[in-house]
């Protein structure tokens, strides 16, 4: 029989598809869960982040060599979609034994039953920065090897040019000094917007970066005494004052309403005079400007300078079938030398003083010591309540509305109403 072209194509595709589908269905298989046969599965958000993944892999290799009872196996996920993968795995009870968690999510994941407490590690963790420990309900669920700090990145030559004082940890800019400095740079006409606060970033950046400004005014995301209401904290006079000032940064042309896709690269390209960002920008900005680069403390907006605290941390899952094994790894991995190696390889702030002494730049007088000072003196944890993810989303929406011109008091009142309703509907997460 003579086949037409259409038939040939169809038959060809079908012939190709069948073996492929057979191969497809036989490949793959179980991963996750962990615990069986001494194997402990570990999930990390570091796929694509070669430096941090290599540092974690070194710890795991050391652990696997140090004993024969357990074998930790790493599974790396991309950071941008890591949380969705974990939540999906939790829904299907496929969480691994060991996993990393973004600090502010720890109370929610602990409350939801994803995480088990790290029993027996209190002594080892007592030397860690408080901001790298994930706690909830008087139990510790996670620890991190490093913290990051928010800084005002600029160049000494820029401040000198406009006759602006270089602030220090002990003498940060006051609100008036900061605003006057920005207006002076703006008046020169050298920059369309002198300050870039990275408004193009999404997700956790908004509460991480801008709620410390609210706290520096004297407000907060929620009343931390019992975490039952945001009334007075998020919509009181101090909060309204913050919102009005925050909006004025845009209306006065000091900050762009929407930053470029990568504000750090825009800063290096000379588009802004001052960049409000994290210490992760230090490597690139130093590479561009060398010793001219300054990493300044955030301004004191009335209640002292504040920065967000808490970064990625490690914990163990509730459904790990070998909790003892997972805890054994966690104890092993909490050594100072591993804190030092991860912080060194990722250019972040070491979580312990002993580790800091081992990392170049963080020793006394080192170029990165200010980062550690900022983390110790100014860091504020995001609200330690399982309701935090909702609060974060609500704050992000409200701050964006305010920047776009919403009435500050009305927007904040609405946020308070929504946050209070969520806390209440969840029985205050008791």
């Amino acid at each position: 029989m003579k086949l037409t072209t259409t038939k040939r194509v169809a038959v060809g595709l079908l012939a190709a598809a069948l073996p492929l589908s057979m191969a497809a269905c036989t490949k793959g298989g179980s991963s996750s869960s962990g615990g069986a046969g001494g194997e402990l599965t570990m999930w990390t958000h570091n796929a694509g982040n070669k430096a941090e993944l290599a540092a974690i892999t070194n710890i795991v290799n050391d652990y696997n060599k140090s004993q024969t009872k357990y074998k930790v196996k790493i599974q790396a996920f991309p950071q941008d979609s890591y949380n969705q993968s974990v939540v999906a795995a939790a829904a299907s009870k496929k969480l691994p034994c060991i996993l990393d968690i973004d600090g502010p999510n720890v109370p929610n994941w602990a409350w939801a039953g994803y995480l088990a407490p790290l029993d027996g590690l209190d002594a080892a963790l007592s030397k860690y920065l408080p901001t790298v420990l994930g706690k909830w309900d008087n139990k510790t669920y996670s620890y991190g090897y490093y913290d990051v700090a928010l800084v005002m990145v600029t160049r000494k030559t820029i401040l000198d040019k406009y006759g602006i004082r270089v602030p220090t940890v002990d003498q940060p800019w006051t609100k008036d000094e900061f605003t006057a400095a920005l207006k002076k740079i703006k008046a020169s006409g050298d920059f369309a917007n002198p300050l870039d606060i990275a408004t193009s970033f999404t997700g956790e950046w908004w509460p991480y970066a801008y709620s410390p400004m609210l706290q520096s005014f004297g407000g907060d995301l929620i009343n931390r005494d019992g975490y039952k209401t945001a009334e007075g904290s998020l919509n009181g006079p101090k909060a309204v004052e913050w919102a009005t000032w925050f909006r004025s940064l845009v209306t006065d042309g000091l900050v762009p309403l929407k930053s470029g896709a990568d504000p750090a690269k825009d800063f290096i390209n000379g588009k802004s005079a001052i960049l409000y960002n994290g210490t992760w920008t230090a490597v690139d900005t130093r590479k561009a400007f060398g010793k001219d680069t300054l990493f300044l403390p955030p301004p004191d907006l009335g209640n002292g300078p504040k920065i967000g605290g808490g970064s990625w941390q490690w914990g163990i899952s509730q459904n790990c079938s070998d909790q003892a094994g997972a805890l054994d790894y966690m104890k092993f991995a909490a050594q100072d030398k591993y804190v030092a190696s991860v912080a060194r390889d990722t250019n972040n702030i070491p979580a312990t003083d002993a580790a800091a002494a081992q990392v170049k730049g963080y020793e006394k007088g080192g170029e990165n010591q200010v980062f550690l000072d900022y983390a110790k003196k100014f860091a504020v944890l995001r609200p330690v309540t399982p309701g935090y993810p909702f609060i974060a989303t609500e704050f992000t929406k409200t701050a964006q509305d305010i920047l776009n011109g919403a009435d500050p008091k009305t927007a904040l009142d609405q946020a308070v109403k929504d946050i209070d309703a969520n806390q209440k509907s969840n029985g205050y997460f008791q």
Partner: protein
Amino acid sequence: MSTATAPVGPGVGSDHLAHVADPTTAAPRRGESGRHGIRKPLGVLARIVLCLVFGLPLLFMFVSSFKPDLQIFGDLGSWKAFLPVGDISTDNYTGVFGRVPFAQFMTNSVIITVVTVVLGIVVNSMAAFALSRIGFRGAGAVLGIILATLIVPFETLALPLLWWSNKLPFLGPDGFTEGWLDTYQVQIVPFIANAFSIFLFYQYFDSIPKELDEAAKVDGAGWWRIYRNIVMPLSGPAVATVAILTFLPMWNQYLWPLMAVQTEELRPVMVGIDYFKQLNTSWGQIMAYASMITAPVLILFVAFQRSFINSIASSGVKG
């Protein structure tokens, strides 16, 4: 056909009538030639604008894939963003291969997409054939129910589907196992049956004369033979349309693999783009990766451009 557009120009018909004003040959009235004259360049201009709107982002992506990150941002705001000027190199491409297992991701996407497209054509055409040609009692209601599922967004089904996928048994080389998560089949099987594909086939099959079935039946053909030897060979445009409409979303799968796949060896290309979104994002590498995963789709489109347009146009007309 309207006679008003019949070409009756000078020299057509009797000479003595040549000077008589004919509505179709008469000199255009005042303003008409202007409108006609403007319409053509406006049409060309509109096409150029459309080309730029759709083409420039692709050009930007491709050109940026050869530039260092700082230059990508430095060139923004000028035409240099679309030109291969400055510090041009293939470093971003080298970086991509160092950061993600590109060949593995690409192979996974090809397997998942090809298998779903082919099985989707077979399964959905059979379903549509049954609904359109066999004419069993309740066929209309079944079609209505199938069409009703079109309004349910995938996001609402994702969690229940995940739950079920985790419970399903599977017979493989290791015997019966429970749970399909973290496999190829979990990325393929849920997307084979597709209400829209059934609808497209149903529409097309309905336009094929039923007399052909009658004639085949008289010659002793059964439903399978009518489907295979008569209806499917006449349904090339519908097959092509369904193939395209299945291929694109399968190639672009993102949410479901995120939820259902945990092993790197089984991830498709779209999830791979997340590997580049770090605190210090590598924009050049993102552009290089995006160029590489877009290329197969573009090459496929350019190669089969005529069939794509014909199939979509013909299916649209049927509707």
